[in-house]
């Protein structure tokens, strides 16, 4: 055997041995003991906690670099523990006035920012005002603006800043010694949840030294509505009180590096370092997890089968979430200027008119034409629930006994026969169900619904079309979407955020659907100001019944999942964490 053949044989043998599965990864010891690496799809938009309105940014900053006045108690979204405040204001401890409008937070002493300077009540006030008056278009400022000032935006229709609002806010948020008092316009039950999630405290002194707003009305215009994310010094730099300090946000390699804050006011974090990497390709993320180069990765439901059975990997499923999906029917569709998704735009068997879904019998027909069991089995792999209205399971206000429609061909047929005095049944129709491109779960839901509707009457024709997010925005603004499937994630852990979006005449979804039910509007406005949980529950239950009767939307409550290496310790779930990990209590063993 000559040399070349021997070499070739040796190479093939070596490759065969390697491919036989003798890899270093499986059953391996903990890799990078003191560093936690999270590989996720997407990337943060900013490190500024008052600019950010996306999960990826919050994953880095919220409760890691910056902290809030109170925090969630364990896995609860309705109970709180002190954080930068030493108490959770309540009527019992005198921290909340009896009229439910004034909250007093006693600010913790001995807490230092990452630059070593002490946090004071002035920093808290500055942070709240900064959050409110940054007020960028499409930002989260309304979350505090609404309860404190009763407005959603600080500018008029022409874009001019209303500086009188600052004077009002300055009076509403007062500092006295080590306490901060916040007086709301009206009692607002979700307020503590908002504080737990959105009251990130930054250093006023440091901010001003970096050229940021100086805290006065005179320079407010510079702060208000920045044009670009990097118009604020907090964009890529951080100085908070959190258990981790921001070392670097490298947008070139799409990595964010956090390091343990050794001067933290509580016990230091167990992890020395946290690295969050943007890895868009699921194949690469999966392999990184398998090899131990990532300790946790983001996984969509349809990607789950590819990580099941991986040695050394832990999957936590059936997690409650503060999000759901809706199948929305638009009551006033714009058919002018051509709308391919409504066919001819007339009830002639080849299309639908703009008010097609305005008939409640049509909506009830649709709701009873959806095979819910097949949908949950095939689309959600039985990891989902039929919604009982817009409030997700587990939230105060969700009524597990609320009646909802079931898949029933006879009733669906009866509803369609009833619609428009039988005209719809006799003439037939054609329209398109739309969902966002790339979301195979929602595509599946659309197809199950299509199948159900078409099975009732051969004259019923339904198409399914995926659209990009950009197209969705255009169609949404022009009210051209006949029936679309999209989701909602809570801004704060209160059912009010859901009913407002789904049922108020000015809600994000219901407003676009052209829905207007004065009773629903009134209940939603009442439930905002009502602080008694029992009364709120009763109001939410009524809204649930309205949701059933009016059935403008069919809701699906999905469950969340997390995928991590089994050497990860200290992880726990809270629905308010949305898609985030809370790194402070975590370690690797």
């Amino acid at each position, binding site marked *: 055997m000559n040399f070349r053949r021997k070499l070739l044989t040796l190479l093939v043998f070596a490759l065969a041995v*390697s491919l036989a599965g003798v890899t270093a990864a499986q059953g391996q010891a903990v890799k990078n003991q003191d560093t936690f690496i999270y590989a996720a799809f997407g990337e943060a938009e900013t490190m500024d906690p008052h600019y950010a309105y996306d999960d990826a940014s919050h994953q880095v900053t919220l409760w890691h670099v910056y902290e809030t006045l109170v925090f969630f108690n364990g896995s609860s979204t309705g109970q709180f523990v002190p954080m930068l405040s030493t108490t959770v204001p309540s009527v019992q401890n005198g921290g909340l006035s009896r009229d439910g409008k004034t909250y007093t937070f006693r600010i913790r002493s001995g807490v230092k920012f990452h630059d070593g300077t002490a946090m004071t009540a002035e920093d808290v006030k500055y942070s709240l005002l900064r959050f409110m008056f940054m007020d960028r278009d499409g930002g989260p400022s309304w979350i505090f603006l609404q309860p404190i000032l009763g407005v959603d935006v600080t500018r008029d229709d022409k874009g001019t800043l209303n500086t009188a609002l600052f004077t009002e806010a300055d009076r509403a948020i007062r500092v006295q010694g080590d306490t901060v008092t916040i007086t709301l316009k009206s009692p607002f039950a979700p307020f503590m949840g908002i504080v737990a999630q959105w009251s990130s405290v930054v250093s006023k002194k440091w901010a001003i030294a970096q050229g940021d707003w100086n805290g006065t009305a005179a320079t407010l215009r510079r702060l208000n509505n920045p044009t670009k994310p990097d118009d604020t010094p907090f964009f890529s730099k951080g100085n908070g009180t959190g258990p981790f300090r921001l070392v670097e946000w490298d947008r070139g390699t799409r990595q964010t590096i956090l390091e343990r804050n050794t001067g933290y006011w509580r016990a230091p974090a167990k992890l020395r370092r946290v*690295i969050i990497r943007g890895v868009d390709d699921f194949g690469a993320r999966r392999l990184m997890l398998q090899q131990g180069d990532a300790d946790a990765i983001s996984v969509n439901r349809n990607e789950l089968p590819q990580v099941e059975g991986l040695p050394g990997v832990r999957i936590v499923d059936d997690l409650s979430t503060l999000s759901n999906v809706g199948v929305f029917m638009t009551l006033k569709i714009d058919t002018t200027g051509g709308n391919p998704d409504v066919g001819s735009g007339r009830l002639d068997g080849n299309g639908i008119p703009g008010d097609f879904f305005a008939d409640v019998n049509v909506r009830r027909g649709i709701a009873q034409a959806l095979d819910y069991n097949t949908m949950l089995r095939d689309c959600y792999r039985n990891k989902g629930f039929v919604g009982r209205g817009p409030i997700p399971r587990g939230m105060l206000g969700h009524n597990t006994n609320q009646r909802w429609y079931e898949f029933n061909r006879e009733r669906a047929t009866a509803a369609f026969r009833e619609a428009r005095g039988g005209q719809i049944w006799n003439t037939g129709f054609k329209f398109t169900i739309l969902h966002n491109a790339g979301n195979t779960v929602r595509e599946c839901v659309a197809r199950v619904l299509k199948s159900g509707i078409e099975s009732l009457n051969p004259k019923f024709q339904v198409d399914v079309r995926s659209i990009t997010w*950009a197209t969705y*925005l255009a169609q949404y603004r022009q009210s051209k979407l006949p029936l679309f499937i999209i989701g909602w994630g809570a801004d704060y852990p209160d059912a009010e955020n859901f009913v407002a979006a789904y049922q108020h005449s000015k809600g994000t979804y219901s407003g676009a659907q052209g829905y207007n039910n004065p009773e629903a509007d009134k209940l939603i406005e009442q439930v905002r100001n009502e602080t008694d949980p029992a009364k709120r529950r009763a109001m939410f239950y009524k809204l649930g019944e309205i949701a059933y009767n009016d059935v403008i939307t069919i809701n699906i409550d999905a469950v969340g999942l997390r995928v991590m290496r089994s050497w990860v310790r200290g992880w726990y779930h809270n629905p308010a964490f949305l898609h985030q990990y809370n790194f402070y209590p975590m370690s690797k063993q």
Partner: protein
Amino acid sequence: MTTYIARRLVLLPLVAFGVTILIFALLQFLAPEMRASVFITNPNQLSAIDAIIRKYGLDQPVYVQYWTWLREVFSGNLGWSQTARMSVSDAIGAFFPATLELTMYAFIPIMIIGVWLGTSAAVHRDELIDHVSRVFSISFRSLPSFVWGLLILMVLYGRLNWFPPGRLSLEADLFVRSGEFHRYTNVMTLDALLNGQGWIFLDALRHLAGPVLTLTIVSIALLVRITRSAMLEVLRQDYVRTARAKGLDEPVVINRHARKNALIPVITLGSLTFVGLVGGVVITETIFNFPGIGRWGAFAAQQLDIPGVTGFAMFTAILTVAGNLMADILYAYFDPRIRLQ
């Protein structure tokens, strides 16, 4: 030649701006709400669509938007890329070195192996090496780059843990970020050598191996076939027969007389390959999580990040013109019959 080169260089900015006019013209087909999608990324922001459109002038006539952008460019500002989370010029500076590094390490083996294999296949026509090269060419070309990339990632990283994705290992990455390492060029292998850190050089090479192998496999097939065809054509020529008749050694006939004359189509393909690599290879960069300019450009286009797309298009237009100019110069060098007019 100097006049020729100067003339071509003058064309560079004209081509670049021509590309931007084309992009802005295409904007006509996009509704303002669609262009707002790069700023409104989740349903919770839907109520701000009107405000966003007003804020960024997205409903302005396209010539107004173009003039606003042009004014910024003349003051040195290519705009903000929402997808890169930085200015367009910073994004090019951040992502291009990675792609350049990938190109350097992929282009050389593609050319060397491609030309060598193509030449050998032609010289030993219908022998074993010719058949083997043909089988490899067809096999390599049959599968798209993402299949090769995934296969290489799954086997060489997933199974063997040889070539991980990304640019550096954790340890190397942390060292590079420490104050002890100076980034001169952001080309990691080069910077490692300049810093005298051989282990980082090897680490960077290890991370380059996967994408380089993918690109080599995918690009080499066509080069082998073109080189083989060109060589066969040249080997049939009278002057080659004469050279052999004069008693010259076969390697001298092939290397000095034949190969040089077969290089014109190879140069064409090589320059196109180079421009294609240096403009960014989206799929390979995405699969291996390699932070190059191609991945960013594709993502910017997908997200309708207009400043990002415009900046990326201008940059690749400049690279394309420069690449073609290099090819023209090489033609003149290898073939004296060609004079640059």
